[in-house]
């Protein structure tokens, strides 16, 4: 398999779309393949473009905004890679990935690569293989990489640990000023976009956001600008692109870029470590009738679940050497 991966990587570096697509699937489907891909990639030299995360609730217009951002970037001569992540059903394992349907006109532009990904069990707004896909798109030569998060829940924080610049998209009539404090929008955002700003309430929302931003603990010398847009008519989109580029230069000058890349590295190691430990333990549990019996008898005597887990873990760790692979 390694030979095949090596040759697909060479083809990807030569801008072969099929090879790139194939490698992303391999990384999604198989952690061992992802491991080999990333091992070989680490020995290759390629440019590392700006990674932009776009977060926000379903229906605020993330996909449509990304479509307009892509058109603007193309006007400026930049190529783009888009990773659009949608939720995977926890019940069936299936998914309907519909983001692409809002970006139809980009389909035949060779300077734009769009890939839809199911979250496949990850809850932080991006999937495990999203980071593999980012590396592969970098090798492919995308000038900018845009990640569209699942848009589910208020905890899309994983994108913060994968991107240089996070754009939070909100819209009028989607909550009050307390929600702005709750949702973490102002915490994770480097740029805040009020989309559908032709709707009633956009000005009120803007002043509420400004208020919330004043309460934000200033961390890095960058105050998130507020941009009003109408994604369908491209209003405000050039300003988003300008501000995104500005933020990247700011990070480069302030040393924030390396800091965010370090944070992303740590987050990826954390995720992989947790997955590896979890899958090792799950395999152990699923294969053993012993576990089911122990669980049943623990239930019968209503033993403390905490105590049961302590007992289980110490037994597992004694027996299983967590494979270092």
């Amino acid at each position, binding site marked *: 398999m390694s030979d*095949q991966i090596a040759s697909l990587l060479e083809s990807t570096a030569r801008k072969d*779309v*099929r090879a790139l*697509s*194939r490698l*992303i*699937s391999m990384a*999604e*489907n*198989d*952690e*061992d393949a992802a491991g080999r891909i990333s091992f070989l990639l680490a020995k290759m030299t390629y440019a590392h473009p700006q990674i932009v995360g776009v977060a926000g609730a379903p229906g605020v217009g993330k996909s449509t905004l990304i479509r307009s951002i892509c058109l603007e970037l193309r006007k400026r001569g930049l190529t783009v890679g888009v990773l659009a992540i949608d939720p*995977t*059903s*926890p*019940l*069936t*394992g*299936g*998914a*309907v*990935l*519909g983001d*692409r*349907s809002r970006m*139809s006109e980009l*389909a*035949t532009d060779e300077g734009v*690569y*769009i*890939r*839809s990904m*199911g979250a*496949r*069990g990850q809850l932080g707004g991006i999937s495990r293989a999203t980071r593999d896909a980012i590396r592969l798109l970098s090798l492919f030569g995308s000038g900018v990489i845009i990640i569209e998060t699942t848009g589910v829940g208020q905890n899309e924080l994983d994108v913060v640990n994968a991107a240089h610049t996070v754009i939070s998209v909100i819209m009028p009539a989607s909550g009050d000023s307390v929600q702005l404090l709750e949702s973490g929008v102002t915490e994770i955002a480097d740029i805040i976009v009020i989309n559908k700003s032709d709707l009633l309430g956009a000005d009120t929302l803007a002043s509420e956001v400004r208020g919330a931003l004043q309460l934000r603990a200033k961390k890095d010398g960058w105050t998130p600008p507020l941009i009003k847009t109408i994604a369908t008519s491209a209003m405000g989109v050039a300003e988003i692109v300008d501000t995104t580029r500005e933020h990247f230069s700011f990070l480069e000058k302030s040393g924030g870029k390396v800091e965010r890349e370090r944070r992303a590295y740590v987050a990826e190691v954390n995720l992989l470590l947790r*997955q590896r430990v*979890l*899958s090792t333990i*799950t*395999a152990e549990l699923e294969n053993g009738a012993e576990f089911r019996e122990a669980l049943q008898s623990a239930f019968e005597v209503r033993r403390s679940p905490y105590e049961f887990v302590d007992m289980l873990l110490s037994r597992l760790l004694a027996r299983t050497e967590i494979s270092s692979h």
Partner: protein
Amino acid sequence: MIENRRTTPKLRILLAKPGLDGHDRGVKVIARALSDAGMEVIYLGLRQTAKQIAAAAVQEDVDVVAISILSGAHMTIIPELLENLRASGAPDIPVVVGGIIPDDDAASLLNLGVKGVLGPGASIPELVAMVAGAAKRRVASGAAL
């Protein structure tokens, strides 16, 4: 389903409606059915050109392209799609078609290389089996690797 295994392969299906066909109620039912069967369905929506569908099929690395077409233009659009897939270096991605397809046309489409055709009255399990079957034959032939 807790997805913490090291290997989680999934079938990826591109679903689209080409041409000027404006009815998407049926195709949405199909998107849901395939997703309920555990597949990842990339839904492109209405009014797609053959070129757009072929480009998306390559970028998304799908196992099957499933086309819904009710307008009667299948004998024009499907050959064009197959040609575009060939031109994109992806002649191995199987295409299946569902819609109002007369028997004679269904036979012609199958001759052209379409891997399955379903008409009105087909059941959801038939549909899922056809899509999964087309994907499986591709994997068996080694084309997916």
